[in-house]
């Protein structure tokens, strides 16, 4: 068959890299000048962020008077059960919140994109607005609604046997509030991705005999996978670092690393110990952040090569 042998190689050829600059010396000189421009903002960032972080690290190996004392503080803090528990709680809450956000966010995004209803636009607006609200509004609301003296409990008290709910001041309350607050971070990129899926793709899938679940699993979700992975990474990082929500739930037994840093430095004034925990948290956050950025770069790089 003659027609089959006719191919257009241009369409199949891999993406061509950016051509080299014809005059590299000029580029270098330009870069040097540009780097000069970068000095003032970098200096500000160093003064208010990088140096303080470095001082925190230094603090962890010095005593209250500023004299170097080695890793003694590290040994003490790392050996404490409280730290390990806090580390476990932090990761556990972050994991639960991320899972919840991914599930709820995917459901919301799929529903809002493919089963739109009157008011779905309003729902999207609401989701976007929540991000600019203070995060503590959710634990505050949960406290009002489901707290020990909250609306639900006072309503339940009238019922026979006076049932009682009490989850707000514990891990479930924190996780629920974090899911509510961070879900928009999953929904927004997914809505963008789903908006790009041609309707034809869904129609054709249906005409080939696929039911809604198969279309979801084999067509919609594969398209969402990169965005989903990236936003899951982001939510995990945010949940790990979250402080306001946990603070507001007032849960005494939910001690995450940020809470531990807060109590050690503000409540018990054990600054060296706080510094050690901060260093740990810093290392953890930066690792997760590094993985997140690598993931985003790989995924966006992959899609660029595909384009």
């Amino acid at each position, binding site marked *: 068959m003659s027609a089959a042998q006719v191919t257009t190689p241009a369409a199949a050829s891999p993406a061509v890299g950016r051509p080299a600059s014809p005059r590299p010396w000029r580029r270098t000189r330009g*870069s040097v000048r*540009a780097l000069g*421009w*970068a000095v*003032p*903002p*970098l200096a*500000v*960032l160093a003064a*208010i*962020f*990088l*140096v*303080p972080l470095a001082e*925190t690290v230094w603090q962890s190996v010095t005593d209250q008077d500023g004299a170097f004392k080695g890793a003694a503080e590290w040994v003490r803090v790392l050996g404490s059960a409280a730290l390990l528990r806090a580390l476990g709680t932090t990761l556990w809450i972050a994991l639960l919140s991320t899972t919840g956000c991914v599930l*709820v966010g995917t459901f*919301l995004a*799929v*529903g809002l994109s*493919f*089963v739109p*209803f009157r008011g779905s636009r309003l729902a999207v607006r*609401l*989701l976007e607005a*929540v991000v*600019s*609200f*203070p*995060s*503590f*509004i*959710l634990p*505050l*609301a949960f*406290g*009002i*609604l489901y*707290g020990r*003296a909250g*609306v639900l409990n*006072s309503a339940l008290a009238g019922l026979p046997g006076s049932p009682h709910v009490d989850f707000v001041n514990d891990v479930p309350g924190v996780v629920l509030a974090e899911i509510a607050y961070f879900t928009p971070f999953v929904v927004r990129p997914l809505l963008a991705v789903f908006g790009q899926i041609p309707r034809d793709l869904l129609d054709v899938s249906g005409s080939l005999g696929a039911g*809604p679940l198969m*279309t979801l699993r084999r067509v919609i979700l594969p398209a969402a996978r990169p965005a989903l992975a990236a936003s899951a990474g982001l939510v995990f990082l945010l949940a790990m*670092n979250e*402080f306001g929500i946990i*603070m*507001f739930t*007032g849960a005494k037994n939910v001690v995450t690393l*940020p809470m531990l*840093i807060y109590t050690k*430095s*503000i409540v018990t004034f054990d*600054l060296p110990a706080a*510094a050690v925990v*901060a260093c740990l*948290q*810093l290392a953890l*956050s930066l690792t997760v*952040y590094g993985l997140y*950025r690598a993931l985003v770069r790989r995924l966006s790089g992959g899609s660029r090569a595909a384009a």
Partner: protein
Amino acid sequence: MLLHSRSARAAVKVALVVVLALLLGVPLLAVALAAFAGSWNGVWPSDPTLAHLADALSADNLASISVSLQTALVSSIGAVAVGAWAALAARSARGRAARVIDAVFHLPAAVPSVVVGLGLLTAFSRPPLTLNGTAAIVVIAQTTLVLAFAYNTVAGAAEGLDPVLEQAAGSLGASPVRVLFTVRLPLLLPSIGAALGLAFALCMGELGATIMVYPASWRTLPVSIFALADRGSLFLAAADTLVLIAVTVAVLGLIARLRGRTMVR
């Protein structure tokens, strides 16, 4: 288009509405209602009152609002100035230098607010710069925390800037500074406005770093709200939160209007 069966569509719609309501609708509504509730012992609040709101606007609280406003304005303007500058520098630099600038300016978003607060406490509690106990340390804390968001917003827009425009301006004999003020900044103005709005909103609600560093004389509204909630005065806290959101939305509206006007010009 995905669901052809009417009942399945209806079921999904109901589920969507229920999830959205439980997740966000009911909580936000509860806060709004609680702000006006004298008591709330049934399904609906009772004894509607403006007392909480009056309390939220009392002299003591007005000071907190004023502190929050000042801190958020100064911090967000500072953060956007530094962030936009860095974004422009990163765009000019290109290559490896740009990647380094980009990574470094994104860092503050990855570090927990409490760690930022602790760092500032550690760094500024002793000479050469003793800021502990001043308003400045609160401003610095919030600036640091929103810097990455300000940078990210402007850098995203700068990335999409057509270099041909700048080259054209350059070929017409405009100096780099002139190009900056007549071409780049006007084109980036919308994103700078957006960055300012985002930074301001984040500052207004900031708690983690602020609570680490604030002096008693410079107490922001979120800290006051936390104190109320911690005492169990949830209705008062709700009223204060409502005020906080109202003030934030008002300033955001103002920024949006200014932005609209400059864009027309």
